[in-house]
């Protein structure tokens, strides 16, 4: 894959995943453990949607690729979002796992462009990461809290973190798949490095990293089981051939309200 193609697919994956992440954050405006947590989730949803618009703007200007979330007719199997977000998160522990793993993975990828040579993205990343700082603090607070209290909630959190880590490992892709982008100077770190950073970060938040599917790897942490990269879709950055549930996409796209859309 050329560096330009690699850049485009990375931007689409970031935009699609942020759209789905915003949906799930928004869904948890209601039903969180405390009203303060609902306000934080709603606020994070707004920021994810804002980031999606920014990324879509770059795709339109730089790649002549128009993604309008309200007019998007791609089937679920064409979306490039991280598979952990395909279904409703089910519980607060699922939301915390998406916050801690998926959101952080996106921030790590964005951060790798901050000092890079691709100006359209390097220009907007600092503001995005400033907002993301609070997403990370929210995730850290909840992971530490639930993990340290133990019991059923901690078991459920570990399960959700493990599933989120597996789906996100697929997003980071096989070794060196993005070497061209790093060589070209668009990014200052490749996805292998970022995946280790993410695993190290999650390992630092929980008492027993093995409980979330991580294994010590030299001076850091990696997924205990390396994915089989045979079925990896480089364009969608996924191993899972499916996609987000149709009803989630319908809600995001306002499918039921199509009669009220402006022409």
């Amino acid at each position, binding site marked *: 894959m050329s560096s330009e193609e690699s850049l485009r697919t990375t931007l689409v994956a970031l935009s699609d995943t942020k759209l789905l992440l915003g949906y799930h954050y928004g869904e948890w405006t209601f039903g969180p453990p405390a009203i*303060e947590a609902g306000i934080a989730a709603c606020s994070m949803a707004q920021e994810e949607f804002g980031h999606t618009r920014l990324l879509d703007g770059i795709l339109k200007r730089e790649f002549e690729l128009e993604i309008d979330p309200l007019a998007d007719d791609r089937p679920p199997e064409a979306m490039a979002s991280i598979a952990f977000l395909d279904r409703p998160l089910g519980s*607060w522990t699922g939301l915390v796992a998406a916050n801690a793993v998926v959101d952080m993975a996106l921030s790590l990828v964005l951060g790798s462009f901050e000092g890079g040579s691709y100006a359209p993205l390097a220009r907007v990343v600092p503001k995005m990461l400033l907002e993301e700082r609070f997403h990370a603090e929210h995730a850290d*607070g*909840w992971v530490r*809290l*639930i993990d340290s209290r133990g019991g059923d909630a901690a078991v459920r959190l570990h399960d959700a973190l493990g599933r989120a880590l597996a789906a996100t490992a697929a997003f980071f892709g096989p070794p060196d798949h993005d070497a061209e982008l790093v060589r070209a100077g668009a990014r200052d770190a490749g996805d292998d490095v970022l995946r280790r950073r993410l695993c190290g970060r999650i390992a630092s938040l929980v008492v027993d990293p093995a409980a979330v599917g991580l294994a010590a790897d030299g001076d850091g942490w990696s997924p205990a089981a390396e994915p089989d990269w045979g079925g990896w879709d480089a364009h969608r950055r996924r191993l899972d051939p499916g996609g987000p549930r149709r009803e989630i996409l319908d809600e995001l796209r306002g499918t039921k309200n199509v009669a009220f859309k402006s022409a």
Partner: protein
Amino acid sequence: MGVPERVFEVFARIAPGDPMSHVGTLNAPGIELARVYAWRIYDEEDWAEMWVAPRDAILSAHPDHEGPLPAPGRLAGKPA
């Protein structure tokens, strides 16, 4: 899950050098989340500074009152 929560008080200044104002109260299970919640909930101004403190860490300096800051309207040591 039954997570115990503490009450936190939020203070802020609009501009450096302005008086510090008490802007509100929130519940959070710990200081880390209290910081996040405070910034998210009380975002009506472009604050230059925002501070958050556990209510029970704020002590009375008035000679007629003792102990930590009570809930509003319940000043410790003052006749009902």
